[in-house]
């Protein structure tokens, strides 16, 4: 039977088991929206800015391991998706973005709300399509979902001219895709795995760096088996947090620019790095020339192009982490590495890296730790970018698999609120904490309307220091405290919340922190806490830009702090 392009799209989305679409409509996508209302199984969540749709779909995809879907109209609508698509691309999040486009006859004529959006999204998508007829639509959707979720997952964009949406064609949803140029590798090469096992079995001081690939492949058990069987300590990249329980005796926390001092020391001293599902991002490695100088490197990744891109690798294994570890674990010998583990534990004692000062002032670190205590780690933590993100990463010990959502690669301020929304929609039965900065919060603040309208019960913790805090910290350390344009005038966030009919409290004293957190958790629905925190608190440890992991700066001792911060001293 013949169907319109809009119907074919909706039927195809149903075939792909899509449950939620985040989007906003406009002229060039009206036929799709008109048809969408006839498909109640496709829940549409009307966001208030397209960037929010893309971030929500991205976070939804991360926490459900399904493909997230966002939708927008042509021109400005599509262009507003771009940051969100770029974010999903950098963090390999499977998203299908669908945009309306002007009718075919108008393409290339600078029509109203026309943008060459496939030209724009080309370098920030895994693949994209400008659909030229309704007849090719079903195949396109099938391919888009397949490409988005398989191999190294990522965003795929489908641009649909308005008249393709109304054009009729036979609807047959293809059973298989035909993509001769796309054959992701899932199984690791056996000879490479054997080589890796030999290196692991002979290493004196091996170290696992677990990245987001472990979470995407849901290889928690396999990672744990490898670590426990051979007694190999595990450190994480930022997005690898929650791939390995932080309370495990073999867990030594995050590495990198704001990693634990002892974790960075482990990297610099290890003789064998087993990097699993991570891509040697510069925030994790610091300068690559002096990264892990004593180590040989085994790199397990599903994307062959990641091998050798940033650091030289001794044994590459291309494949899905779960499959590769499944085979590798059988060939790895039982081991103890007791001396190496003792060294790491000693370093951890000597360089605890995480200390929360006593006192009255509301410290961000304390807030994060109290959210952990109140939830006992049974929460999804979604962060913004900057100091709030780093404190969440450092002070929330992630023990529950796949419980951390953050913008790692692109570092998108404003990710937190729409992403928390998407995460909560994806896992409605779980507690979702949105850790926001006061700067980033205002970048996507309009999604409070979506949250209120849809009653999406996210708990929002604004770490309000009145600064673009991470930038301020760089100005403090590297620009002689010249705080150019980092001080923020903020609105009254309680009044903002009130306007959106979201209950909220403000916290100005440390002894109010815990009760506010419980108040938020006990409330059935969205809740906002404005934590007015110490304005010039810094994130430590820190590896200064351009330095190696060996030059990790630790939390300054109180005396040093007081010298740099006379204001703080006066008050305490």
């Amino acid at each position, binding site marked *: 039977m013949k169907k319109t392009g809009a119907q074919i799209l909706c039927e195809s989305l149903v075939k792909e088991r899509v449950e939620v679409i985040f989007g906003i409509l406009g002229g060039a996508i009206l036929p799709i929206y008109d048809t969408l209302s006839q498909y109640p199984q496709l829940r549409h969540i009307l966001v208030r800015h397209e960037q929010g749709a893309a971030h929500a779909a991205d976070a939804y995809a991360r926490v459900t391991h399904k493909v997230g879907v966002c939708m927008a109209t042509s021109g400005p609508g599509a262009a507003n998706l771009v940051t969100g698509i770029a974010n999903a691309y950098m963090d390999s999040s499977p998203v299908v973005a669908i945009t309306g486009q002007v009718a075919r006859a108008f393409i290339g004529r600078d029509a109203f709300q026309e943008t060459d959006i*496939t*030209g724009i999204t080309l370098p920030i998508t895994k*693949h994209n399509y400008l659909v030229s007829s309704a007849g090719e639509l079903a195949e396109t959707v099938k391919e888009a979902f397949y*490409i988005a979720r398989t191999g190294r997952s990522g965003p795929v964009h489908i641009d649909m001219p308005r008249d393709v949406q109304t054009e009729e064609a036979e609807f047959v949803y293809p059973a298989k895709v035909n993509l*001769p140029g796309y054959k992701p*590798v899932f199984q690791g090469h056996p000879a490479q795995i054997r080589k890796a096992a030999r290196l692991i079995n002979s290493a004196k001081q091996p170290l696992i760096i677990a990245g987001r690939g472990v979470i995407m492949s849901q290889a928690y058990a396999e990672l744990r088996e490898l670590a426990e069987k051979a007694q190999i300590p595990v450190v994480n990249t930022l997005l690898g947090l929650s791939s390995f329980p932080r309370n495990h005796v073999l867990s030594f926390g995050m590495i990198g620019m704001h990693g634990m001092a002892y974790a960075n020391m482990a990297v610099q001293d290890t003789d064998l790095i087993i990097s699993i599902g991570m891509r040697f991002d510069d925030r994790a490695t610091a300068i690559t020339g002096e990264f892990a100088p004593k180590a040989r490197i085994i790199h397990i990744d599903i994307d062959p*192009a990641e091998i*050798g891109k940033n650091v030289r690798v001794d044994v590459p294994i*291309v494949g899905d982490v779960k499959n590769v570890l499944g085979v590798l674990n059988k060939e790895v010998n039982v081991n103890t590495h007791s001396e190496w583990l003792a060294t790491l534990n000693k370093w951890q004692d000597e360089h605890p890296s995480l200390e929360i000062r006593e006192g009255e002032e509301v410290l961000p670190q304390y807030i994060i730790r109290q959210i952990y205590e109140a939830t006992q780690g049974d929460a999804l933590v979604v962060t913004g970018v900057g100091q709030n993100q780093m404190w969440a990463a450092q002070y929330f010990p992630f023990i529950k698999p796949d419980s951390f959502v953050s913008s790692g690669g692109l570092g998108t301020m404003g990710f937190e609120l729409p992403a928390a929304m998407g995460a909560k929609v994806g896992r409605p039965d779980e507690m979702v904490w949105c850790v926001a900065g006061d700067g980033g919060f205002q970048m996507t603040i309009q999604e409070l309307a979506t949250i209120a309208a849809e009653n999406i019960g996210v708990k929002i913790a604004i770490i309000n220091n009145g600064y673009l805090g991470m930038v301020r910290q760089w100005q403090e350390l590297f620009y002689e405290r010249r705080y150019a344009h980092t001080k923020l005038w903020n609105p009254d966030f309680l009044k903002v919340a009130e306007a959106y009919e979201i209950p909220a409290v403000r916290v100005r004293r440390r002894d109010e922190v815990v009760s506010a957190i419980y108040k938020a958790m006990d409330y059935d629905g969205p809740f906002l806490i404005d934590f007015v925190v110490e304005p010039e608190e810094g994130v430590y440890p820190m590896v200064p830009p351009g330095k190696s992991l060996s030059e990790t700066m630790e939390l300054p001792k109180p005396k040093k702090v007081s010298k740099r911060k006379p204001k703080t001293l006066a008050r305490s």
Partner: protein
Amino acid sequence: MEATKYTISMLVEDKAGVLNRVASLFRRRGFNIQSLAVGGSEQPGLSRMTVVVLADPAQVEQVRKQLDKLINVVKIVDLTNDDMVARELALIKVAATSSTRSEIMQIVDIFRANIVDVGSDSLMVEVTGDEDKVDSLFELLRRFGIKEVVRTGRVALTRGAVATRSDNKKKGGN
């Protein structure tokens, strides 16, 4: 590491925007294209692209892998170290007077090139060969006054057994 010329041959799907995807990837990753030639292949629906890149060995490995990630790239091989035949074609319009015409024709003859158009004050020369041959001819003709030149860029195939067919393609792996 020293940058050298690498010859990469690709089979790509003959679809709208594929050339843009390839070119965009080179730009965005900062790879340097020396020449790019594209045309039909022996297989319907597939085109063959020959790209010459100036790169060091690690870079060319990245080029190859990144190109391989493009969905429309069906097969990619680095022919540089293979036994290949590489050719380019150039059309050279050279100034010619009654006194220089015969000398030009002799040079063209030596290079086994062809005169493909004769004008009142110029000749058009068609030459096929590797870049060195084209360069040499160009140098010799320079003193007569070169009016216009167009070069295709390198096209290449391996000798003997077929290397870039989609049916013996191997993606990914180690």
